[in-house]
């Protein structure tokens, strides 16, 4: 990965775009892990990108196509600048011996260059893209997706323009020096305005201020100004002809000072501005905020290591409900029928009501089994109803109780489990009944069944009236 902030910004922006379709949990895990593993807290976007590129085996240092395109644009500007600089200087210094090269024209041109350079810089700082539509069209045609680079177009273009301007200045200066050596150039000054030589000399002094101490010979004196003025009509003075060439050091230094130097400074400024803005864009990139958040936020995992049960339980059962028998013994298991016990199960002379399970102790259970045994022993069709709470699932304690009872009671005893609803007058829900049917099925006891108690509508109303 290149060290240049622009490359960094583009690669970061691309990575954020690639991440857009990744699962958020994955991104969080990946980035948090990177942050935890990072040594010395080096978790900046540069290290992060290097880490990702290293993991994906992407070769480092590949030139971005978009930057290569801008490099080509800069090169085109530079080449065009160099060519135009040479042509412009040839045009400005065109001398066929019949007239003089007007210093005023050269100064005006230098001023224009200066203004153009400043305008380019202002445009880059304001962020104006008057040519944006052209670039957009070009990038769209080349299939380039919108990237953060669009926001740097003003700065990139300013840098390219200043590079072109710098080459323009250099090439112009080289052409000037070459022409000075190879030709006898005749400079003079002329203007339609009613400006006197003194005034012109004063302006020249101001322009030459920067190099006055360094190279005094390049500062035109009053005599030179006075003697090299020319008019449309009238013949040149013989003294002046010898001094026409003395202007060239002034022209060369004015060019250096007001064309080359500003361009050099502005191209450096453009470069600094581009880097500054690139860094700012990276720092304010929404992806960086999200990345930092992912790095700083701990990863929460609430799952189990072991595979949890994914299959729903099999709830169907082939067993059916059976009518409950006329039983001489009724056992209330774990407080079933309390406080409302249906009349069919209350204690009578023919029916004994016993309690087991729940709050009763295990010895109470054994006692209840013994008492029931005594009743069943004299009964021709031994049967026991075990009332249970339909909503309480059958437990192993009931299973133990039934196993013990089966050992104690006559072999032919029919045991009917009868789950009661919270309101015993009503039939329990099917889900509740199903668990009792499945329980009975698991016991594999042919003399064990499940029954249900339900008052009919008319009896129900009567019972409600009694209550």
């Amino acid at each position: 990965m290149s060290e240049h902030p622009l490359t960094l910004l583009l690669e970061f922006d691309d990575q954020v775009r690639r991440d857009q379709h990744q699962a958020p949990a994955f991104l969080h895990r990946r980035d948090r892990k990177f942050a935890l593993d990072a040594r010395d807290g080096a978790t900046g976007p540069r290290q992060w990108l290097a880490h990702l590129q290293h993991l994906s085996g992407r070769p480092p240092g590949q030139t971005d196509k978009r930057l290569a395109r801008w490099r080509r644009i800069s090169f085109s500007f530079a080449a065009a600048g160099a060519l135009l600089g040479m042509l412009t200087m040839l045009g400005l210094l065109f001398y066929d011996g019949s007239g003089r090269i007007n210093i005023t024209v050269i100064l005006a041109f230098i001023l224009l260059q200066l203004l153009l350079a400043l305008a380019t810089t202002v445009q880059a700082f304001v962020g104006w893209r008057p040519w944006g539509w052209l670039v957009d069209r070009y990038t769209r045609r080349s299939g380039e997706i919108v990237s953060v680079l669009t926001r740097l177009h003003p700065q990139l273009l300013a840098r390219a323009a200043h590079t072109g301007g710098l080459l323009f200045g250099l090439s112009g200066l080289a052409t000037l020096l070459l022409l000075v050596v190879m030709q006898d150039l005749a400079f003079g000054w002329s203007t339609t305005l009613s400006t006197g030589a003194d005034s012109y000399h004063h302006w020249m002094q101001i322009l030459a201020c920067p190099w006055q101490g360094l190279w005094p010979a390049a500062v035109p004196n009053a005599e030179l100004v006075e003697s090299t003025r020319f008019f449309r009509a009238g013949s040149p003075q013989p003294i002046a002809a010898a001094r026409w060439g003395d202007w060239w050091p002034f022209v060369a230094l004015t060019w250096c000072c007001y064309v080359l130097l500003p361009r050099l400074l502005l191209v450096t400024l453009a470069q600094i501005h581009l880097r500054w803005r690139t860094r700012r864009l990276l720092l304010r990139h929404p992806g960086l905020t999200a990345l930092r958040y992912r790095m700083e936020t701990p990863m929460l995992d609430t799952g189990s290591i072991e595979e949890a049960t994914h299959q729903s339980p099999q709830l169907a059962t082939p067993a059916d409900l059976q009518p409950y028998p006329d039983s001489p013994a009724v056992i209330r298991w774990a407080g079933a029928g309390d406080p409302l016990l249906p009349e069919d199960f209350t204690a009578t002379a023919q029916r004994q009501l016993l309690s087991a399970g729940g709050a009763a102790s295990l010895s109470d259970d054994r006692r209840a089994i013994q008492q029931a045994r005594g009743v069943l022993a004299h009964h021709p069709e031994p049967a026991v109803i075990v009332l249970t709470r339909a909503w309480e699932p059958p437990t192993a304690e009931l299973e133990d109780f039934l196993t013990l009872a089966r050992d104690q009671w006559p072999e032919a005893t029919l045991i009917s489990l009868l789950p009661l609803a919270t309101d015993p007058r009503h039939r329990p829900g099917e889900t509740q009944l199903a668990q009792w049917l499945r329980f009975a099925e698991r016991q594999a006891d042919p003399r064990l069944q499940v029954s249900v108690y339900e008052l009919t509508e008319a009896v129900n109303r009567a019972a409600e009236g009694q209550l």
Partner: protein
Amino acid sequence: MTDAPVFAVVGHPNKGKSSVVATLSQNDAIAIALEPGTTRHSQAYPLRIDNEVRYTLVDTPGFQRPRQVLEWLQAHSLSASDRAETVAAFVHQHRDDPRFQDECELLGPLIEGAGIIYVVDGSVPYSAENESEMTILRWTGQPSLALINSIGPDDYSEAWHNALGQFFQVVRKFNAVSAPFNQHLSLLKAFGQLQPAWEAVLDQAVLQLSGQRAQRKEQAARLVATALEDLMAWQEQRTLTASQLAGHSRDSLAEQLRQRWYRHQRQREQALRLAIEQLYQHHRIQRQEAELTWHSEHDLFSDNSRQTWGVSKAYLATAGFGAGAIGGAGLDAITLGASLGTGALIGGLLGAAGSYFYGDRLKLPVLHLGVLRNGLQTARFGPVQDIQFGYVVLGRAVDHWWHVSHRNHAGQDLLDLEPTDRHWLEELASAYRHDIQHALARCRRQRALSSDQRHRLAVAVEAALDTYSQWRQSRG
């Protein structure tokens, strides 16, 4: 961290232990309502922060023979001081006894120092049968909390509360299926208060869970924004040779591409659904979604959807004004402000007028045939020209997010996304509306969003999620 607290969720079989664990551990794969007595092993669900266990919830089998256990304990204990040791002795003694496997599994974590979370069903009457269990738990001497989890419609929680208060340090009501998220956090905090050493750990976990919740909302908004972008800009393309083109009438080609376009849009919306569900760790809704009734009745493209989730002309005009003003402001920027904001005003008015007059007209995508080049011609269908389409997608996505984010992991019922009766989006702040409108308009013209625009859209969608939540809350 070696001293991370462990909480064993214990109780009578089928009283919602697994539901509580499923909700608190955000794991919908925990089988709920298993046949009583068939869960024979404890299952640990640790909460890890950066792979470091902070606390563990242990789902245990229910008590099967509590009275026998209590009888054994009472027979082997001399005084109150040896009770905890006696419970440990019971576990060691019966580790290999299949008759007490359930008890050993549930008491095992307790003798190793786990806190007790005793779960009862508050919708059924209190039973003294539970007292044996509660006594055994008290014998362990571990910090304890009782949860009244109401499974059915009836309420006996008062009686339970009174009874449980005699055995447990803290008694809380908690409905594992319907309790809102802040109650989950409050419950976890209560776990921390059982023992001073646990408080900081649980407080930290609660903080992280709250952060995760906020982060998920933001991530959900990003997912919705990305889907919105994709759906609005989708174009179906097919390249045909001249002979293939001659074999198709324009209508049949348009119909073919239309069907493919519609299929893609539906699949993209489904992909968004799944992504949101996975974000909230709901993995089982995926299977249940095929059975959803809303999908066929309230399809993405149905008029019903449009009626429900589309926005009014006035809304479009306001949002259009903002979006137009953003474009018009460009003119002001070019003139360095010399136009004194006229550009923004004109842009805004044009945007508002355009949205008002064309906003409610159903502009379906149309078929475009490209130029014949090298004997090949490309037929294109889409993107959608109806801006309302974006609002339909947004409305449905936000509604789905709300249901998923408010769904507890113990929930087993079908996800029913019933349409709303009034448009809530009008309560969204105007700046966000403009951002949404601007992004939709840009996508519709197949102009990709920059990172910054994408971020603004996601922020606006997140604000829409908040607005929708508030609106649902205000409806009760």
